[in-house]
């Protein structure tokens, strides 16, 4: 490793470092992007399109269970994409179970009520095979995309030797030195295995492993209150597994609490066991199964149970190991993430960072993509446009889907004070659930600021197709829509989303159509 070489004092006249020339700088590349995920791919392609000479490195360190995957990052391989497909597998099962009531003679009435009945009709192997085949197709597509965009791609691990030089090591151990005028760090994060739980890393799996698991998950313990834990527990239950979720304190910390409670309540109604507030202390292998010793966080009472699969989703850590950042005096946050300013600049002027690895960012694919594209336009097209982190919409794909844009009720009360808010909320019946006599309801909440003409600062929707519903509303919220705008918009009938065009204070229950 080289000694710390301080780059020349940067001259910051704008969002971009200008202490070195833009062309004729003598480095191999204008830009090297380290990390081929959502952010890295978007940034590298946008930069190349603007004329920069770009190289991108992507390398997947195996999970503790040995799982690896191809180009595309977390979202494509072990995140959003397989998750949504498996969530859909659960929904298809729900529809199948209800199909009798809609006239279909495929599954008898009530024939799929029990978990065991669902499991019998389900092939985990085929779901995994189909999902993985699709993902491999995407891995290939991204390689082709990079080539079309004239971005050089290396399947190699990048490590800084000095401020302008990295060493790229491929899987066979071949090393190559590469220099660049600028770098973008986009290496993302990986699932945490809590060190205080004995044998967690050795015996349990994470989201890195679940979507390609070569055996049926079976009786599963999902440890964690994150959306990863709840989403996975949700679809695993829907496809017939005996699933328990273990939550240390509250579900979905940081999200709207009322919505989070309803999500968990719905899961409990549909067969997922919820252990709250409990936490695991030790895992022990017992034959082919795993014994989990756990304790009540409040009473300290202890208990134990045996599972086929233990799944940890308690958080993610930034993947900075092996990057050689210690050679650069690059500032990290206390949690180990990279500190950047509003222009994605790190403490080293010509090195930038985007995506999950960034401190204080939002860990979502579209945010990383947007950041990457904007950064490229600032670097190579003289743009000064910054990333806007306000009112980023999101959706949690639990069995009761949850879409939100803006502030949670807790955040809104904290920011504006309860007296300055009008909170409109309503539970509503879902037409399609009436034939199969399904009792689940939807829920919507609109948080409006009285002193700002009832501007909508928080939108929350629980119900089917939450992502599709929320995406449209996100545009309205971005345009500073008020309660009046929502009221003036004519609803579409009969859909769930129309309910937020007719909200009244005090009318919180559906009175029927």
């Amino acid at each position, binding site marked *: 490793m080289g000694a710390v070489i301080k780059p020349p004092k940067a001259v910051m006249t704008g969002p971009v470092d200008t202490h070195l020339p833009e062309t004729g700088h003598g480095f191999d590349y204008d830009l090297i992007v380290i990390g081929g995920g959502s952010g890295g791919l978007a940034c590298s392609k946008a930069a190349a399109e603007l004329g920069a000479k770009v190289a991108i490195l992507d390398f997947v360190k195996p999970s503790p269970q040995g799982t690896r995957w191809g180009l595309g990052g977390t979202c494509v391989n072990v995140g959003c994409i397989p998750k949504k497909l498996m969530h859909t597998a659960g929904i298809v099962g729900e529809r199948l179970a209800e199909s009798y009531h809609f006239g279909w003679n495929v599954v008898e009435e009530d024939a799929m009520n029990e978990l065991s009945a669902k499991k019998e009709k389900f092939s985990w192997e085929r779901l995994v095979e189909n*999902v993985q*085949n*699709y993902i*491999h*197709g995407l891995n290939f*597509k991204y390689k*082709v995309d990079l080539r*079309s965009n004239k971005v050089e791609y290396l399947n190699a691990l990048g490590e800084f030797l000095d401020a302008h030089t990295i060493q790229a090591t491929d899987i066979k151990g071949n090393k190559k030195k590469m220099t660049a005028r600028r770098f973008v760090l986009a290496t993302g994060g990986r699932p945490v295995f809590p060190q205080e739980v004995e044998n967690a890393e050795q015996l349990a799996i994470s989201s890195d492993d679940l979507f390609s698991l070569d055996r049926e998950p079976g009786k599963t313990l999902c440890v964690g209150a994150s959306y990863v834990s709840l989403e996975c527990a949700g679809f695993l239950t829907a496809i017939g597994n005996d699933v328990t979720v273990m939550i240390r304190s509250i579900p979905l910390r940081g999200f709207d609490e009322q919505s989070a409670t309803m999500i968990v309540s719905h899961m409990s109604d549909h067969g997922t066991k919820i252990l709250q507030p409990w936490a695991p202390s030790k895992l022990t292998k017992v034959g082919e199964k795993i014994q989990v010793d756990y304790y009540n966080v409040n009473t300290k009472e202890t208990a134990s149970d045996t599972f086929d699969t233990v799944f940890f989703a308690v958080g993610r850590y930034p993947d900075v190991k092996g990057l050689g950042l210690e050679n650069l005096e690059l500032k990290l946050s206390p949690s180990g993430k990279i500190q950047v300013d509003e222009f994605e600049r790190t403490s080293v002027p010509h090195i930038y960072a985007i995506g999950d690895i960034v401190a204080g960012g939002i860990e979502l694919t579209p945010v990383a993509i947007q950041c990457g594209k904007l950064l490229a336009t600032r670097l190579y097209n003289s743009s000064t446009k910054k990333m806007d982190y306000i009112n980023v919409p999101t959706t949690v794909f639990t069995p009761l889907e949850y879409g939100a844009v803006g502030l949670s009720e807790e955040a809104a009360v904290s920011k504006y004070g309860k007296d300055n808010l009008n909170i409109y909320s309503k539970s509503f019946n879902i037409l399609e659930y009436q034939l199969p006599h399904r009792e689940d309801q939807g829920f919507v909440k609109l948080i409006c600021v009285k002193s700002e003409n009832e501007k909508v600062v928080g939108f929350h929707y629980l119900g089917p197709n939450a992502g599709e519903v929320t995406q449209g509303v996100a545009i309205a919220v971005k345009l500073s829509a008020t309660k009046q705008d929502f009221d003036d918009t004519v609803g579409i009938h009969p859909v769930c989303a129309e309910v937020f065009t007719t909200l009244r204070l005090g009318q919180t229950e559906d009175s029927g159509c």
Partner: protein
Amino acid sequence: MMHMRINRIGNLNIGKGIFNTYKRCYSSSKNVVQLKNLNDFEEQVIKSKAPVVVDFYADWCGPCKNLTPKLVGLAEKYDGKFLLAKVDIDDINCTEIVRQYEIRALPTLVMFKNGEPTVTIVGDRGIDPLESDLKQLFD
């Protein structure tokens, strides 16, 4: 870089859709060979006296699963008239071959005569057009 005109298009996979696993059908016939690396390619395809059909495929590609067995069948039927050379694009040792022929979609067939690529077919168009193209290759 080899620049080839794509002559024919059929059902193909450019990374979209959900497909069945293609189970690698290893044939021990003298008419079918699995290419191991660029060197292998030079020896078996470029230097071949007989025409060669190079089949670029992947395990995860549905249309490839349909096409390759048809090709194997045709290789047996026209015993000795052409060689079927298969390239698994996910095989790390075949990366250079895939790069040289700029494969962008699967399956892609490149037909060689006297070491030169003649016709490129992207996708599975069914057995009749395929057989017709093949006959033109070795007649």
